[in-house]
């Protein structure tokens, strides 16, 4: 009845946990003091958070090649400082207004009316914080995994971090596009240089897919520029009413860019390759933040700029989302590659996000945003976890695993929590997001809401199957797990567990940030639709 004693394997992590727990107060104290300090001093928060990593990323290239540890430490320090610097966003954010906050506006290219304009509102602020947090973890998880071209690796990560934050903060379309595209360069390198066996194909596929989409958006941006009286100012664009046909065309032009990034159903195939082949940190960034940029784009640009088109196209978007949910989930059942499975699960989960967004109601959009954060945390964590075990076994084949829970119980516990969050178990963050999305989706279109729910069933199916194959059963003789998580890995995963449970039990902490902004967005959609109807009536009368 009882399986054999293997207390040896059980005893070993005891020390790890004990030692790790000593660090926790230190980290809490560090963050706390950092927060106090950063709140006290006045500085342009967003610029610092964007450019500290970017400049740091370039400076890292100057470190002599032989000082690998210095490069690691520097990048860890930079990401930590960036995180601390971003804390005032959380503390000082005014949740009662839908206006942009922490704004910075400077003239940049007066000839084209382009401004260096930054700011966050309830929709974007969380992504900034998520980016600064995940970047730290990307650095720590790669600590021993990356041994070649160390400084280039960390430089790339820092460049990506800065650009990603830039994407979320830009209030000028041109600036947005610069960050949006600039990120491709280090990401391309990251996948292509430090990735898996098929990395080159994956890198170029990722690059071309994204580029085609973005370039169409570029055309859309320029067209909207001329319709906005020659301005790239996003806020001004939001107050412009474009002619309906133009809205439709631009909506699809923007769709090209955002849908590829999300990725939505027919254009998703870059994702499994890129996520699978990228190094751990790359996968984390890709899954955690980069693909959020697409959905964020829908929220920040497509919907408020072209409200009538968004409203008219919402059914198509919802159908595509539901296809992605089911498609992504079913295809997961057929995967044999650990990372590939998680990658395809992202397709499914991002389907939920877009479903929520295009439900165009409070629950849906809030759920969508929350789910983006959740997915960032959870899938990021899953990729981190996979990276940790990959470092030991050097295989991604699910069939080569088995019995990992025996050899690595602590790790198994972490993975279980993330698995549960991924399948949306109540008490984890995934539940809140999916619940709100499905509620919103169901309110918008009942049938699609019902179909989307099936994604949850299949989701449980493949994630539990994965968990079983990797962690349960007898230890696979081919897998060499060596040892359970060490302190560094433990501390990498711990914050994410805390977030998973914190958001799961107290989602209002985040929902309250976006409430007002999302309300503003919905008002924009409804009011302009109203206007459109009025206009149509007037035209008919004429």
């Amino acid at each position: 009845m009882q399986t054999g004693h293997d207390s040896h394997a059980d005893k070993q992590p005891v020390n790890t946990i004990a030692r790790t727990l000593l660090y926790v107060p230190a980290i809490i104290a560090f963050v706390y003091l950092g927060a106090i300090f950063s709140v006290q001093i006045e500085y342009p928060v967003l610029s610092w958070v964007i450019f500290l990593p970017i400049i740091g990323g370039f400076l890292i290239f100057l470190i002599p090649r032989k000082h690998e540890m210095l490069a690691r430490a520097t990048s860890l320090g930079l990401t930590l400082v960036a995180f601390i610097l971003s804390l005032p966003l959380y503390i000082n954010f005014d949740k009662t207004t839908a206006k942009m906050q922490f704004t910075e506006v400077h003239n940049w290219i007066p000839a084209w009316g382009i401004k260096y304009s930054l700011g966050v509102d309830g929709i974007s602020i969380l992504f900034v914080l998520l980016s600064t947090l995940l970047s730290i973890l990307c650095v720590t998880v790669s600590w021993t995994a990356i041994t070649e071209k160390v400084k280039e690796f960390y430089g790339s990560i820092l460049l990506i971090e800065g650009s990603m934050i830039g994407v979320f903060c830009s209030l000028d379309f041109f600036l947005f596009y610069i960050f949006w595209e600039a990120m491709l360069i280090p990401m391309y390198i990251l996948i292509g240089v430090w990735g898996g066996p098929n990395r080159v194909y994956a890198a170029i596929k990722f690059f071309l897919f994204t580029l085609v989409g973005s370039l169409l958006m570029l055309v859309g941006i320029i067209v909207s520029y001329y319709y906005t009286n020659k301005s790239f100012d996003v806020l001004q664009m939001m107050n412009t009413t474009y002619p309906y046909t133009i809205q439709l065309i631009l909506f699809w032009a923007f769709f090209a860019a955002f849908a590829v990034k999300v990725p939505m159903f027919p254009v998703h195939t870059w994702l499994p390759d890129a996520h699978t082949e990228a190094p751990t940190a790359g996968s984390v960034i890709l899954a955690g933040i980069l693909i959020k940029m697409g959905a964020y784009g829908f929220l920040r640009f497509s919907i408020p700029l072209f409200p009538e088109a968004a409203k008219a196209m919402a059914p198509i978007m919802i159908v595509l989302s539901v296809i992605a949910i089911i498609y992504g989930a079913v295809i997961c059942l057929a995967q044999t590659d650990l990372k590939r499975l998680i990658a395809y699960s992202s397709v499914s989960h991002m389907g939920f996000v877009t479903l929520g967004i295009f439900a165009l109601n409070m629950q849906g959009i809030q759920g969508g945003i929350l789910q983006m954060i959740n997915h960032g945390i959870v899938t990021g964590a899953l990729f981190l976890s996979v990276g940790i075990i990959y470092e030991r076994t050097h295989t991604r084949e699910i069939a080569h695993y088995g019995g990992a829970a025996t050899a690595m119980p602590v790790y198994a516990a972490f993975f279980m929590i993330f698995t549960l969050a991924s399948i949306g178990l109540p008490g984890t963050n995934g539940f809140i997001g999916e619940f709100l999305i499905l509620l919103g989706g169901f309110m918008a279109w009942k049938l699609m809401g019902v179909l989307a729910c099936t994604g949850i069933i299949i989701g449980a199916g493949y994630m539990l199957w994965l968990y079983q194959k990797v962690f349960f059963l007898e230890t696979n003789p081919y897998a060499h797990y060596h040892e359970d998580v060490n302190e560094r890995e433990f501390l990498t995963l711990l914050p994410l567990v805390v977030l998973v449970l914190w958001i799961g039990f107290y989602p209002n902490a985040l929902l309250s940030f976006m409430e007002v902004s999302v309300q503003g967005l919905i008002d924009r959609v409804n009011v302009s639709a109203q206007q459109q109807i009025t206009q149509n009536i007037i035209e008919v009368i004429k």
Partner: protein
Amino acid sequence: MNIPLPDLTPIIPEIIMSIVTCALLTVEVFVKDKTKDFLGIICIGTALAVMYMIPMSQGVTFGGMFISDGYSSYFKFIFLISLILTILISFKFIQREDAEFGEYYSLLMFATAGMMIMASSADLILLYLGLELMALSTYILAGIKRHDTRSNEAALKYFLLGAFSSAILLFGISLTYGLTTSTNIYQIAEHLKQGETSITLLIAMIMIICAFAFKIASAPFHMWAPDVYQGAPTSVTAFFSVGPKAAGFAVIGRVFFIAFESLQMDWTAILIGLAILTMAVGNILAIVQTNMKRMLAYSSIAHAGYALLGIIAGTTEGLNAVMTYLLIYAFMNMGAFAIVILLEKGENIKDYNGLSKSHPLVAAMMLVFMFSLTGIPPTAGFIGKFNIFMAAINAGYTWVVVVAVCFSAISAYYYMRIVMNMFMKPMEAEAKIYPNPANGAALLISLLMVFIIGIMPSVVIGYTFQMFM
């Protein structure tokens, strides 16, 4: 008979260029020095001096035949910058290639002078002569490695096709002359505005378009370019890909915007066709290349296609976009060629395999240039494309821009392949490089400009370089 001396101020830059060049030819004979570097240094000095003088020498002279306005000045800057960069990357390279003749620098100078005259000429006769001045110099430059069959072949192909195209140009000019009794573009414009369009005029215009399309290597008049770029010494190729192309655009702008203004509908339609074909041919054929110089040749064909969009826009904005584009293109393309020259063996794309391992800095710079050529922000290449697209969309040619954008995405493939080879492929053999200060300077200038323009585009855009109307 009293012949008044015309006002020479506007033409001082060209005069200085010519005089210095003639002097160089003379001096070079008497110098026994083994290296001819000092000739190059003099050329750079002259070019810098001329650049300094250009803004001060504005005006119209020789009876309206020669115009130095903002438009021509900008182009002259592009020519001179490409000249300076070419000379910088040439110094040690032509020694390596055993092509170091004193005439090398003189010919570069003559070619530049020809381009400058082209940019400034308001008369088809002067234009033709400037073009021939440039063309003949470049034919010789292409074949300056006279012991190398490839160089010979390049020169011969360039020469024969160039002569063929200038004969076509002449036929066009002669018809235009016959229909307007004038060779001055402003008078032609005036005449054309009064009368109605005749088919003969269209034929003349088409012939002129074809000849100019040859100069900017626009499809289907591009076929010389890959062979010539490949065969010519790399430094000369670098020069070809920027200077004569920019000169071609300068005259296209001048002639079509002023002389054939009333036929705008027609030439726009033709140019749209040419532009799309050019982008298609350039990008699609670049994908299958294995030779670096050849790939860059097709890339430069493709870029000519993008630049044509600015002309198609038919507005001052478009023209300015073209100028900016060419300036940016000069920096990024010169940078790429500087790296090809830096390497001992840089002709084959396979030579770049694993470059990031042996020479990470070189690889990183090449990466920047490749991304810039692709048009990814925050590099200058993006600003150039963005500018062009803005102008074209503003003029209502959104669908052409969409086509351009698609080809631009295709172009990413072959530029990324270089990056891929450098960073993601295993090293086959340790690449040997020949670093020298001049080449380094050229690289540094290009790199800095690519970033500066990319991040602070205000330094190059936003000014309107109006043509003298």
